[in-house]
């Protein structure tokens, strides 16, 4: 916390700053109305809705197979995991058991997505703090994942690989080799990341002690994902409610007790290693079998309420479906991690400087379409 208790009789006046909707640190169209005194933030008021596309309402119009396509556009950096959430919800509702091959491939793909997302976050974090080269390092490695995705899925960002009942296509023949090549490369590249940013004294000073989230606050505000694990809260859905092939692999849930921005940063850095470990365990053991289960052309869920949660790169994504037995859901609700994580921004950035707000926002890793939907 900064010291501002110098007693001068100067009267200072608060003023408003509009940070966004077009601002380099917003990474999208998030508008923050800041009340600042000089450089010190007194209040942060997020104003949402600039990229609202009423995806939830569109879900009520579409069939279940069409809904999967929309979820790509929620958190576009975790598009595969979003797809998976909807598919799992529909599969569970219908009582479909997908083949092991599907589970394995889904898990590998999800972890690759998580890696790509964390890489992008790392690069952008560097850029927000002012180290522009980090961005290029991150994109060099992320490109490899995108190439893998392109080869197997046909798309680089909004992959749309999952369908209720399995996968759209089988994996590309070169998939396993390429993934292994990437892991080999990235195991060498990750220490580079650490020397470039994590161990840099300026970078540490910029993040340590900034944006402290206490355990109680994190729970009260519903913070999830790496942001909550940086405060020492065990909330990894992959561990607590394993889905797909997460119950077949061994990995550590990264927990750091500190709660400041640097701890959240370190959680994500270590998560990248864990993701590589998960892929290592699965990539050679992909079972033979079908990549799809036959599902009816028009899926109709039985009447009732269904909930499925998954761990995206940003936290816990919940999918809640109310079905009235028709071809489209009666109500479709996403519990997006970004929205809950944004809610704590005001609390943790009060008293900090404008530059800190940018650091805090990066450490919470917002993707704006995920907040707005």
């Amino acid at each position, binding site marked *: 916390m900064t010291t501002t208790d110098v007693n001068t009789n100067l009267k200072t006046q608060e003023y408003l*700053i509009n940070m966004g909707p077009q*601002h*380099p640190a917003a990474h999208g169209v998030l508008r923050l109305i800041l009340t600042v005194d000089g*450089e010190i933030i007194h209040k942060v008021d997020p104003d949402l809705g600039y990229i609202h596309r009423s995806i939830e309402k569109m879900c009520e119009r579409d069939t279940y197979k069409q809904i999967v396509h929309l979820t790509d556009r929620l958190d576009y950096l975790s598009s595969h995991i979003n797809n998976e959430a909807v598919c799992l919800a529909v599969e569970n509702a219908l009582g479909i058991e997908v083949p092991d091959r599907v589970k394995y491939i889904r898990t590998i793909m999800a972890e690759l997505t998580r890696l790509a997302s964390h890489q992008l976050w790392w690069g952008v974090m560097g850029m927000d703090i*002012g180290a*522009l080269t980090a961005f290029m*390092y991150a994109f060099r490695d992320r490109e490899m994942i995108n190439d893998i995705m392109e080869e197997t899925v046909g798309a680089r960002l909004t992959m749309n690989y999952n369908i209720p009942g399995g996968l759209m296509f089988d994996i590309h023949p070169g998939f396993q080799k390429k993934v292994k090549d990437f892991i080999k490369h990235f195991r060498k590249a990750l220490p580079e990341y650490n020397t470039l940013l994590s161990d840099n004294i300026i970078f540490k000073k910029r993040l340590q002690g900034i944006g402290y989230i206490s355990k109680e606050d994190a729970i009260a505000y519903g913070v999830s994902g790496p942001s909550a694990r940086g405060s020492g809260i065990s909330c990894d859905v992959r561990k607590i409610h394993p889905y797909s092939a997460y119950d077949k692999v061994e990995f550590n849930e990264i927990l750091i007790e500190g709660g400041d921005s640097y701890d959240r940063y370190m959680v994500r850095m270590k998560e990248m290693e864990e993701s590589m470990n998960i892929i290592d365990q699965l990539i050679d053991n992909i079972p033979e079998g079908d990549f799809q289960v036959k599902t009816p052309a028009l899926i109709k869920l039985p009447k009732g309420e269904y909930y499925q949660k998954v761990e995206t790169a940003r936290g816990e994504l919940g999918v809640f479906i109310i079905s009235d037995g028709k071809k489209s859901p009666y109500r479709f609700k996403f519990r997006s991690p970004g929205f809950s994580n944004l809610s704590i921004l005001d609390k943790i950035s009060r008293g900090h*400087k404008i*530059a800190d707000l940018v650091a805090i926002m990066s450490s919470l890793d917002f993707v704006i379409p995920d907040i707005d939907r």
Partner: protein
Amino acid sequence: MYDFSKMTGAIHEWLSSLMPSILVTTIEWVLIGVVFLALFAILGLVLVILERKIAGFFQFRLGPNRVGPYGMFQTVADTVKLLLKELVSTNKVDKFLYNVAPFFVIIAPLMIMAVIPYGFGLTAYDINVGLLFVMAVSSIGVVGILLAGWSSNNKYSLIGAMRSGAVIISYELSMGLSALLAIVLLAGSLNLNDIVMSQQAGWWLFRGHIPAIIAFVIYIITGTAETNRVPFDLTEAESELGAGYHAEYSGIKFAFFFLSEFVNMFIISALAVTIFLGGWLPFHIPGWEGFNNSMNYIPGPVWFFLKTGVIIFLLMWFRWTFPRLRIDQILTLEWKYLLPISLLNLVLMAFVVMMGWVF
């Protein structure tokens, strides 16, 4: 070594034989002005392309590579574009200050360029208080930045300008009082030519050993801060303030701010070279007569720009490696660490000079 004052003297005599003295002075003024403006423009063009190429090198990319061979004319094309752009200004700007600010920013480095010795006898304005003049004039630049931020009618610009004012005013203390004064103690003169000539036996960086090295490091840190470059670029702080103080400028006015950053970087490097690294003097290793003699054949200006290039590369290396500091951290660094260290260093240097412990 070739004395350039012979050449300039010959030109002066030739002109004097042709016309009355007042006309000669006028023509010489114009000539020098044109030379410096040309140098300014060339430096801007070269440094910008250099920065972009070096950035590319650090970031595994090629940098500009479309205009001309290896993209060498990219900056020329950019300049033409900026010259042709419309000069947009926002509502309710303070018109006079808004228009005058870019000139403040650009005049400061131009004036400093006049006193820098580029070679033996190659100084436009050889005054005996050269270093003092540099410190005095370099403060004018910050006035331009403050005016730009204030007159733009933009809160982001204002924040950027205020940060810049705070940073530059603080870092000038360390830079002038200590880093530069330490060498003045060694050289015994404020005249930049004399400082260069006093280094014939060896560069001050080496001859002044410990205090000189400390002074050099402090000078490089403060110099980076003076030019508002990473890790002290919080004036523009792209991710926080958009573009900071020059957010509302466009066209050639923006180009003035943009170029002045690069020319300022040149000035800082040139001063570092002049004061610590022997200016235009060739690189000598004591005892190696043959090597030293062959080094003498390389002309002074080449040495000057070569050494300056090394320091400029160092500054660019900083820029593409380090994250940005926060305003309070920057001020803490200056007032709590650099200023005390450099004051102590000044005392140490005085002691060293008094005891004659100079190599």
